[in-house]
């Protein structure tokens, strides 16, 4: 029998659209994983596997379309005063399809896709003047489109593998400020948005009936821009402007290697331990020198970090269907070094507490799946001691704050 599958806006294979997984790394993806502090690589079988672990799609049970939303509040403090950081809001969409293939691939292949679309800005490039304090890893990373597709295959009763892509955009172009044929000052420009794919590869091993182990590698995702601005205004201006090179990195997520184990000691209870390595040492400068006369910029010296996460989920029949309660914790070391010189790229160690609830009625006339979650991120206080030979001592700063974010998703089996 060919299983009917209905899918919400599923996309296949070489999909390209500008995106960076920044809100995915900050908050997680889907309706279940954020309530588990970002764990789920070893247990998910839903559309969120496109980010967590594509291998999970091999076990996706039914076709489902899911829509959800996210809203948060950044309460970041600089020197004890709140900053005007825009809070994130966005729409999440996902879909999963068990593929009705025959022969050797029967009941082994699943497709999935996921979108995250910020409500305010699809992409944001924001970098203040050097020396202006900025929460470099928080202020704009929440405003990036996420667009992922993946496929998972069960290669044996115990092993599944999967591959997906997170698609991003790179901007290249030139702007020329000149005089047109009628004597008006005008700009002539040409800019191209190119594709950059960040693959996600995952594997899952069913070690036993109660234990699953996952390994996922997410390639770094980076959205760059590189625009050259020239001018040819003749005698309009008595000063000749230099060639201006506007280039930098709008968004960046590092290479991640994730290992996770999920243990089900009792029926309905899942305990998960997760450790990820984030290669922040490759973090690029947010902006490069705009003109050739600027002195060379020093290296940022961000360092790699290890991110531990733990979570617990308990589900049982209830309310006519299934009820699940979720909780999790993660600690995210800051990869940013002490800002002793002119740079002010601030970042703090972060404690992430998560909670969530899931309700499902798979056998109902309208088979619904509801998931809600909330996270509290606490930024540990940090003070930056400046090098008095470089920066005036009274320019020392301290940073702290909290982030509160929550989301709700609704899925329908088709």
């Amino acid at each position, binding site marked *: 029998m060919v299983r009917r599958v209905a899918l919400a*806006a599923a996309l296949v294979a070489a999909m390209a659209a500008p995106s960076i997984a920044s809100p995915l790394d900050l908050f997680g993806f889907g309706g279940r994983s954020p309530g588990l502090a970002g764990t789920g690589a070893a247990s998910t079988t839903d559309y969120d596997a496109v980010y967590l672990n594509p291998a999970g799609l091999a076990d996706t049970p039914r076709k489902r379309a899911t829509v959800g939303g996210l809203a948060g509040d950044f309460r970041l403090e600089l020197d004890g005063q709140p900053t005007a950081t825009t809070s994130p809001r966005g729409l999440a969409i996902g879909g999963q399809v068990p593929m009705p293939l025959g022969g050797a691939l029967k009941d082994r292949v699943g497709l999935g896709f996921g979108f995250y679309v910020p409500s305010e800005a699809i992409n944001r490039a924001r970098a203040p003047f050097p020396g202006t304090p900025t929460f470099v890893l928080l202020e704009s990373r929440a405003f990036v489109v996420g667009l992922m597709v993946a496929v998972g295959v069960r290669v044996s009763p115990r092993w599944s593998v999967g591959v997906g892509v997170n698609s991003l955009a790179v901007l290249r172009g030139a702007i020329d400020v000149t005089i047109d*044929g009628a004597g*008006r000052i005008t700009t*002539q420009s040409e800019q*191209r948005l190119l594709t950059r794919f960040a693959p996600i590869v995952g594997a899952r091993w069913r070690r036993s009936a109660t234990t699953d182990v996952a390994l996922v590698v997410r390639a770094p995702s980076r959205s760059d821009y590189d625009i050259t601005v020239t001018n040819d205004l003749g005698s*309009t201006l008595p000063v000749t402007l230099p060639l201006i090179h506007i280039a930098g990195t*709008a968004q960046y997520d590092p290479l991640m290697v994730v290992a996770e184990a999920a243990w089900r000691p009792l029926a309905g209870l899942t305990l998960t331990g997760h450790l990820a390595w984030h290669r922040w040492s490759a973090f690029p400068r947010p902006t490069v020198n705009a003109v*050739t006369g600027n002195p060379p910029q020093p290296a940022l010296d961000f360092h790699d970090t290890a991110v531990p996460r733990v979570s617990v989920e308990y589900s049982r029949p209830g309310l006519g269907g299934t009820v699940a309660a979720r909780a999790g914790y993660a600690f995210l070391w800051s990869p940013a070094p002490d800002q002793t010189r002119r740079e002010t790229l601030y970042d703090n160690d972060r404690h992430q507490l998560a909670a969530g609830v899931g309700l499902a009625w798979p056998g109902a006339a309208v088979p619904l799946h509801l998931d809600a979650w909330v996270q509290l991120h606490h930024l540990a206080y940090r003070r930056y001691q400046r090098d008095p030979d470089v920066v005036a001592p009274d320019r020392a700063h301290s940073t702290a704050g909290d982030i509160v974010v929550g989301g709700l998703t609704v899925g329908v089996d088709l």
Partner: protein
Amino acid sequence: MKAAPAALALALAAAAPARANPADVYGFGARGQAMAGAQVAGADDTSAAYYNPALLAASPDIRIDVGYQQAHPRLTIDDRDTDVDSSRGLAIGLAVPGRLLGARLAIGAGLFLPDQHITRTRTLASGQPRFQLFDNRPQRLFLAANVATRLPHGVYLGAGIAYMSSTQGTVALDGVVGFPDPEVSQLDMAIDVDLKTIRYPQAGVAWEMLPWLTVGASYRGGFHLQIDQTFDITGDVGTPGFPPVVIDGSLHLRSQAQDLFQPAQLTGGAAARLTPRWTVAFDLAWHRWSTFENPAAHIELGLDLKQFQELVDIPPQEPLPLPHFHDIAIPRLGVEHTRGRTRWRAGYAYEPSPAPPQRGATNFIDNDKHTLALGAGVDRAGLGGIVLKPISFDVALGLTWLPERTHAKLIAADPVGDYRSAGVIITGSVTSRWRF
């Protein structure tokens, strides 16, 4: 700084066909191209994600179509090839049916991804001659997703929302502008640029009026991409390390332009299976080109050079001339002949030009277009026991002819002068269509 002045057509669930630029210009999918785009009532594959989303609910199978299409224009001015860029890329469609509360539902998506880039935006000087409908319009991603449902009595509805984007932002530079040598400038940069989201609704309907006759209609809203960039340079003018020539000068430049204009479109048509082997489809589309605005940049420029301000001679910014485009109606006719597992197709379309002769200051060149297309397809029964349903392979070739048109200027001292425009465009595509 323009972080991304790009047109991003984003597909969402319940999101609908975006302004499919390359599909608008060259069609989508080999079957649709071979039938000259007469598909609003006749699309039988995932190309319905472009032609009429309602028809996505007509098939009970999961459908995945993958293909590649190219268009090579040779557009000439005074018999000289202007080397307009070709448009080529991957074309993918997906349609997934299902049932909800007993009703058939379908969700579909279509994608055209150019080889060269996701999207290209281009702003040209107002008077620069260009083939306005081909210069940059096909150079973008087309991404569409829809939801469709089948209602009683053979009625289908499809609808969705398309996302586009516009760029807004500021680049600020502060420091020293080198004088007399600009290369010694030292400027720090700050950027604050957003790629904002814009939402557009659209819809389609189809009705199986008779067992052999389907009628359909679709609407796509119009849009254009707004590009809004500001540059602010503040600081001194002189040589770093020496007393400045100007202290605390400033330059403010704001450029506002639009690109990738898409007219609103309303299409109606019918597809008739006259015999078991012959199918004829006819479409009539209305394109609202009358809302097209001059895409050249409008500039605000402010300059403060303190004691040297009298040397500044900024010409007055005259308003941009209006393009005076008009609405057009496009008829399309397609036929398909089925013989066993083979299908033969042909189509013709006539698209009048929405642009008037370019007699004034503008040079938005366009000609009437006659398109003749041919194509074929062959079905194959499954694949290796893994793909259990038929697979189809389709090819299409098309020729669009732009008859010569003369643009005689009103003023002798025109910056461009008279010219003749003409051209041909050759298109081709291959598509493999899979069902599950």
